[in-house]
């Protein structure tokens, strides 16, 4: 296996628990990630799967250092970035990019697509030849050049997500975090966006962390999978191995709960009916 681009050891993240915040004073901390160890090999796509509340998005935000770990380390190209200051992180931002879940709220409604894609280029000292760079970024994601002058509301959901990808990849980053990037899209659009990301990741040799709740999508896109539950890694392995012989019972449950688009009269009957309590 390729050497790791990112190495995570003993990673813990604690965030303020607003549901337990007293009227006056600070909210107590709740541990969201409870000690994670894994590597993201260079040039690979790793799926991070889990149900809501499993900590997968928190993990993603820690990987791109939007939040600071409370313990453990995150190494990027061998350098520990887990406690770098904002100023120290700045030169690394170019290499750690992110594609967001909701392209509607992650694109500024008052700026043209050109200025949205150009902003991070200027921020990162690539302000020369802006027109050429933005044109390349649009072309890369299959959008016509005249889209540069449009605004987000003039675009369809799939086109907006292409802009999100163009913005993240314009900087030629080494690492891209993709957090539920197709969960709001129709299946036909979802297929276009995923095949685009698949192609670009291979062409540009990107290392990608692909967060999703959909194991079917992960099987197609990812070389390895990390299954999370309640802030811990339940199982991590190569994709084919995970699907062919899942080791953990929870992984098996997750896989068997996917309703495949095919007739299977036994499917509804395979889940033990246990009473739920509030």
């Amino acid at each position, binding site marked *: 296996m390729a050497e790791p681009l990112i190495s995570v050891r003993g990673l813990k993240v604690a965030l303020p628990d607003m549901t337990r915040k007293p009227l006056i004073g600070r909210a107590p901390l709740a541990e969201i990630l409870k000690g994670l160890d894994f590597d993201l090999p260079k040039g690979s796509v790793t799926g991070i799967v889990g149900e809501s509340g499993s900590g997968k998005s928190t993990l993603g935000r820690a990987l791109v250092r939007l939040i600071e770990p409370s313990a453990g380390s995150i190494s990027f190209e061998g350098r520990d970035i887990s406690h770098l200051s904002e100023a120290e992180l700045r030169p690394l931002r170019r290499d750690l990019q992110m594609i967001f879940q909701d392209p509607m709220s992650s694109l500024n409604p008052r700026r043209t697509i050109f200025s949205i894609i150009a902003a991070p280029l200027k921020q990162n000292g690539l302000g020369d030849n802006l027109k050429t760079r933005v044109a390349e970024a649009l072309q890369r994601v299959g959008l016509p050049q005249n889209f540069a002058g449009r605004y987000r509301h003039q675009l369809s959901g799939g086109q907006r997500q292409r802009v999100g990808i163009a913005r993240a990849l314009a900087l030629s980053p080494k690492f891209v975090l993709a957090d539920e990037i197709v969960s709001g899209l129709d299946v036909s659009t979802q*297929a276009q966006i995923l*095949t685009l990301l698949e192609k670009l990741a291979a062409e540009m040799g990107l290392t990608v962390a692909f967060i999703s709740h959909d194991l079917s999508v992960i099987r197609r896109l990812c070389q390895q999978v990390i299954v999370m539950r309640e802030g811990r890694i339940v199982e991590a392995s190569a994709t084919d191995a995970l699907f062919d012989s899942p080791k953990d019972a929870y992984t098996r449950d997750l896989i068997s709960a996917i*309703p495949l688009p095919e007739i299977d009269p036994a499917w509804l009957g395979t889940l033990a009916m246990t009473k739920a309590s509030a």
Partner: protein
Amino acid sequence: MSAACLDIRSLSAVLPNGQRVLRSVSLSVQPGEVRALVGESGAGKTMIGKAVLGVLPPSVRIAEGDMLLEGEDLGQLQPKARRTLIGARTALIPQDPLTALNPSRRIGPQMTDRLVRILGWSDERADNRIRQLLDEVQIRDPERVLKSYPHELSGGMRQRVLIAAAFAAEPRLIVADEPTTALDVTVQKQILRLIAQLQRDHGTAILFVTHDLGVVAKISQRVSVLYAGKVVEEAETAALFAAPQHPYTRALMAATPRYTDPLASLRPVDDAVLAGLAAEIAAADQAWRRPHG
């Protein structure tokens, strides 16, 4: 065949600008049957559900067509009689249980309200009935749930509560509008199983709106595939998956991801398919406009 539970005949709905949002939709739901309505966003599947329940947005006008609920023509009834009939014989399981529940009231009164106020049941009868239904939806501690506020329950529990409420008044028809879309997969499976179980036990017909062909395959006996407010294919569910006839249905199936066949799935929809659909819609609109000016 006995009278259909719901019979929609050539229903067209238009926006104020004259654009059709439902295009001569015909479909029926037989007693005790689960009929799936599947399509992508904007296909009009939720619109059909709203038309049946009589809650279309004010801007949408029904331009043509009939809806028969157990043989009674809804269009022929006075508004009050129509609302009473719809209220007594139908129920809704909504997509988002959090917005469907009043956040500032406890679950118990929210569940009995409809039975007491609309159907005129006594408090005791309504109370007994919802306890029975909470048991049927496998809720272990009904006392606690009835006293809870919506935010104190998980998404799965809230959806169980709404399923219980929907079945409580023994409706003949339930409109289920993407009832599992907001849920995690393992919870989705439990909820689908509950809906199937209660549907069988009570003999209720369900119009099941979803965007997910996987859910269609597991829950329904018959299915209508919608695109741009038009039914492009209608079939028994088993037949649809064995041999989809319309190019759009085939494209949707090929676009749906499957972990069992990763390389053959996730195929983007072909431009030729979309062009064919556009032509089909345009031809249908032209044929419709002729007599309707």
